């Protein structure tokens, strides 16, 4: 089905925030005594160091054994010590804050530190400590300049905006942002109070509510940074080393200038900005803004995410009642949010994502430098697009010139839209496209390191292609199948070298969807798996690796849920209502719309296959309804008609009236005991969760983390619930089983809970996530 789940809202880009590397937990230094600066010479600092260059102190952050710096207790304590020394040292007139790591200024707060807190009060205390420290920096008599290179996110950004001046490297790695909302939190170290004053209310809301990353040049335009430093090329050192050195030199220059008043920290504001600021100073204008933003947030989150609403409230309090009230509510809300189940779910996803960005199979013997993609359809071209822009030479092969042209145009269009958004130059686009070779024959396949087939989902076609390809590829070349349901071992059955055959299930649209599901068979070699994961990671994907079986993991979980959707529709609930109920539960795309997106023909195909494999467990809805839809040409979005009518340029799509007759034909009576909105939601979700648990039980999934990631990033399982396994934990396995039993009584065996769920239900201490 090449599951066409559309962008999963805000979770589309869970932050690159916070730590990526392992955190070493050093015993926390007492917070109480940290303001009393002890003799520095004897201290052995590991996270923060300080050089005095003339009259400027250069403070360097460097979290040991980690790719990024995080605001851990240790780092904060050492930072405070260093700052106290600077304030006490009369020879120092100003300070520069910089990282020793070119790729990361400070990537955010240490999540482990937050997660170790038992109560909201503990977290509030952390927030207040942070607030106090940054307030001291803001009011420092000696100017402090933040020299930003690499990620400056969350707490890192709050440090930066507490400084008097900001200089940032203008490269791709340098991003600024407040991704806390994506973790169900809010900026808790004064960020909610300082940001609106710095960039204006609308921009501050945008940053805090979307958590989006802002690149340095945009940050300069917004007034978030004061100066940009262009990255340097090679000199007598590496570009990275020299660039950060240069950034430091420039920042020192500005620090000195601020200290001797030759540089002013005041920014010249444009007319528009001055007008906006003036308007925002008027209470009734502000009220309007709050109202608009609030209703927008309500609409998008359905009230399922508490963080955005808190952010609005906190900002509002600060602006209307002053700093003290603002700081207080910020710290309190931060504490409250940190212990919500939504925040725990989102943080779980974050950790899961980090987990799924690692190659557990190790480094492959041979790097894939040349990739061949068979089939230039939506999927094939999408795979090609995310490969060429990572520098992989990619052959895109199709059987017809028309199909190939369409595919090549798709790649061009995808890249060109980045040019329009200015994230790519036209020159870069052209040189990326030079990695793409469109062709109709197997020329050059003798050099391919991997072939990914994205041809029609038919076992005979797949077999034909596999045989053709194996005749032309070199011995080391891997054959990967981008299938969403056909078992890989079945495809590999005709292979001469089944150890080189693997499944790579991409999700559509490939350039937007983050998930890649890799499927290994019993015969797939470790090195083949390592290579496939390496390619996926290079393509920027979050990778889960599952065992082979009908529908693998993702398709298999979706199957029962979609079957239940059909059942619900048959019971007379109209598609709009089905969509409303499912989005209200937190699904980014309504269930009926989802079928249209996937394609009714594809869904039929998959439902039939899985139905054969799993029997009544995939029953519920009538597959004949789908078949009739296919017959009538209601194939979904791609055909312009499915449950809805899709028209170019028409935003509010209407229900396809042609469906009335079909739905009427398959109408079954509804049992009012199990047809409340909540029941319908639970019927969909329990079947999903039950099937996911069964995948874990059967060893299709190797762990619940990958199960959660696959469900959220591939299928749009509500991110606020953290995935089926985290949901089972938080909702309670007992309660889930009770629901399943209730529906089982009405509908039959498709609701029978699996053994693993029953085990969990019977021993309440058992959790999928400890």
């Amino acid at each position: 089905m090449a599951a066409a789940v559309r962008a999963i809202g805000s979770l589309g880009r869970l932050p690159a925030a916070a730590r990526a590397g392992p955190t070493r937990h050093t015993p926390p230094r007492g917070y109480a005594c940290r303001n009393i600066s002890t003799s520095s010479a004897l201290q052995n600092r590991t996270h923060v160091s300080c050089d005095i260059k003339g009259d400027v102190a250069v403070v360097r952050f460097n979290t040991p054994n980690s790719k990024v710096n995080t605001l851990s207790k240790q780092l904060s304590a050492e930072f405070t010590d260093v700052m106290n020394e600077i304030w006490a040292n009369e020879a120092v007139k100003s300070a520069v804050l910089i990282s020793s790591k070119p790729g990361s200024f400070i990537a955010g707060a240490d999540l482990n530190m937050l997660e170790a807190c038992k109560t909201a009060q503990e977290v509030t205390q952390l927030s207040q400590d942070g607030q106090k420290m940054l307030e001291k920096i803001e009011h420092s008599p000696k100017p402090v300049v933040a020299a930003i290179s690499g990620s400056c996110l969350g707490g890192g950004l709050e440090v930066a905006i507490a400084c008097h001046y900001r200089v940032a490297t203008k490269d791709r790695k340098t991003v600024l942002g407040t991704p806390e909302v994506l973790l169900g939190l809010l900026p808790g170290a004064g960020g909610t109070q300082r940001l609106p004053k710095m960039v204006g209310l609308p921009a501050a809301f945008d940053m805090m509510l979307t958590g989006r990353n802002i690149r340095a040049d945009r940050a300069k335009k917004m007034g978030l940074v004061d100066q940009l430093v262009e990255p340097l090329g090679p000199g007598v050192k590496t570009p990275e080393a020299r660039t950060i050195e240069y950034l430091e030199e420039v920042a020192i220059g500005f620090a000195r200038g601020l200290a001797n008043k030759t540089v002013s920290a005041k920014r010249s504001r444009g007319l528009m900005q001055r007008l906006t600021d003036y308007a925002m100073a008027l209470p009734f204008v502000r009220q309007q803004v709050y109202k608009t933003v609030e209703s927008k947030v309500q609409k998008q989150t359905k009230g399922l995410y508490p963080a955005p609403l808190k952010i609005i409230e906190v900002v509002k309090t600060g602006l209307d009642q002053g700093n003290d009230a603002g700081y207080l509510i910020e710290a309190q809300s931060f504490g409250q949010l940190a212990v919500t189940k939504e925040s725990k779910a989102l943080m779980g996803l974050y950790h899961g994502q980090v987990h799924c960005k690692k190659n557990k199979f190790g480094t492959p013997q041979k790097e894939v430098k040349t990739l061949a993609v068979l089939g230039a359809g939506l999927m094939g071209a999408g795979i090609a697009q995310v490969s060429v822009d990572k520098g992989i030479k990619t052959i895109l092969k199709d059987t017809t010139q028309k199909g190939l042209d369409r595919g090549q145009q798709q790649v061009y269009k995808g890249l060109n839209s980045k040019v329009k958004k200015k994230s790519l130059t036209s020159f870069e686009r052209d040189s990326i496209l030079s990695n793409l070779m469109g062709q109709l024959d197997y020329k050059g396949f003798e050099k391919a390191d991997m072939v990914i087939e994205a041809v029609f989902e038919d076992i005979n076609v797949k077999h034909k292609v596999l045989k053709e390809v194996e005749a032309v590829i070199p011995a080391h070349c891997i054959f990967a199948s981008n299938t969403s349901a056909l078992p890989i071992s079945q495809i590999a059955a005709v292979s001469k070298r089944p150890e080189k055959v693997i499944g790579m299930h991409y999700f559509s649209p490939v350039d937007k969807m983050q998930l890649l599901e890799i499927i290994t068979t019993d015969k797939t070699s470790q090195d083949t798996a390592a290579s496939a994961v390496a390619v996926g990671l290079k393509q920027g994907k979050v990778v889960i690796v599952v065992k082979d079986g009908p529908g693998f993991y993702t398709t298999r979980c979706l199957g029962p849920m979609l079957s239940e959707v059909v059942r619900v529709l048959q019971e007379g609930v109209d598609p709009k209502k089905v969509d409303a109920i499912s989005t209200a539960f937190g699904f980014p795309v309504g269930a009926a719309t989802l079928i249209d997106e996937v394609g009714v023909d594809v869904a039929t195909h998959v439902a039939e296959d899985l139905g054969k494999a799993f029997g009544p467990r995939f029953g519920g809805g009538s597959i004949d309804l789908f078949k009739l839809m296919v017959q009538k040409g209601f194939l979904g979005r791609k055909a312009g008609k499915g449950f809805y009518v899709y028209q170019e340029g028409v935003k509010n799509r209407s229900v396809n009236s042609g469906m009335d007759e079909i739905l009427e034909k398959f109408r079954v009576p509804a049992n009012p005991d199990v047809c409340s909105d909540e029941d319908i939601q639970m019927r969909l979700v329990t079947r999903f969760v039950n099937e996911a648990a069964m995948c874990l039980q059967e060893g299709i999934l190797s762990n619940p983390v990958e199960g959660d990631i696959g469900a959220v990033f591939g299928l749009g399982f509500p991110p606020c619930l953290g995935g089926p396994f985290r949901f089972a934990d938080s909702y309670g396995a007992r309660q889930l089983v009770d629901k399943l039993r209730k529906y089982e009584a009405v509908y039959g065996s498709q609701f029978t809970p699996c053994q693993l769920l029953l085990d969990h239900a019977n021993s309440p201490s058992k959790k999928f996530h400890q």
Partner: protein
Amino acid sequence: MSSMLSSALRNLPVSSAWAAGAFTRSLSCSSPFQAAAQPKTKKTLGKTGVKNVVVVEGVRIPFLQSGTTYADLMPHDLARAALQGLLTRTSVPRDVVDYIVYGTVIQEVKTSNVAREAALGAGFSDKTPAHTVTMACISSNQAMTTGVGMIAAGQCDVVVAGGVELMSDVPIRHSRKMRKTMLTLNRAKTLGQKLSLISKIRPDYFAPELPAVAEFSTSETMGHSADRLAAAFGISRLEQDEYALRSHSLAKKAQDEGLLQDVVPFKVPGKDTVTKDNGIRPSSLEQMGKLKPAFVKPYGTVTAANSSFLTDGASAMLIMSEEKALAMGYKPKAYLRDFVYVSQDPKDQLLLGPTYATPKVLEKAGLTLSDIDVFEFHEAFAGQILANLKAMDSDWFAQNYMGRKAKVGAPPLDKFNTWGGSLSLGHPFGATGCRLVITAAHRLKKEGGQYGLVAACAAGGQGHAMIVELYPQ
């Protein structure tokens, strides 16, 4: 007549000596440094089976800051003046010239083959073909080496090469949308069609497209790249200002001492005769220090004072096979020997062409840096020259970016651009290469050296270097 004979005779034994030289050359390493004024006894660089190509004469009209005396002329007028100057200097019979090649960068669309237009206007034979080449700041180098190639291949005996640039006037275009409308308008048949096209014109159609000295691939202006390059090599503002001051001071001295013999006077219609370059302005470090950075604002190091300025000018050079020159009774100034073109990353190494080209051309010629008596490097920016000197002196750079075992070494400053350079004399993009070569030849003669090395960087991340050998006196 007698001189022609004697030189023809002399030619024979010498060429066999070259043959021997070709074998020993690759073995010899650096010969001990000799005092500049002493006559050289080093081997000559001729190769067996390859014709010797000589420079008979090279001239240029005074290089002027754009917007000054040449402001109302067209590019081919400047080229014409240089060509006429060459004719006057050499009295070469017009019909002897087999071919004319010119280099230019910003093309005047009316005279896109400026070589041909200038040659016709300068009174060359209309039977002499001419073409124009472009390779950014090394366009006239390309013109010269094109000529060298034609002569060495035996296709021509006498070639005039040169270059021209007029920055006082550059083509400013209508926007693409406007151009498209205007072109479609040409094809519109009825009044209604025309009116409907005209009605589509919007105010933004009138925004002009200005040419910029920017890379197409990176959209970065050259000055900006130079500032980053200087920063990458840690070159301070003061060092750059000092180097620029040196260039101006040396140029002034050379001008005052009459060493810039390549300059030919140019009577500009309606104005006085121009006899001197007008961009030489030795200032003081204090005054230069007051300028604000021109590209990386507000903290960069490249300023108007330590960059080459926009210049109008043209150059022309008469090159011949050695036999032909001698047969015609000329006393050549220099041999044009090995040359290379290089290219590298147009973003971060845009202006490092000389660093890449220098070791390559030395290797090709079997020389080392210490064999070179005279260095003539194109000075695009003071920071660029200093960065190149540092790069050439860095083993790290040689190993990590050039794939070489060791650095080539930095040229000693006492042999380097001692008559000024592009920073002070000016830099008409298309014309500078010929100035470098003829200046090297003149300096070799004046200073008693034998080998000169000419090198230049160019937009697009390209570079060029050539060995110039003094013609035996």
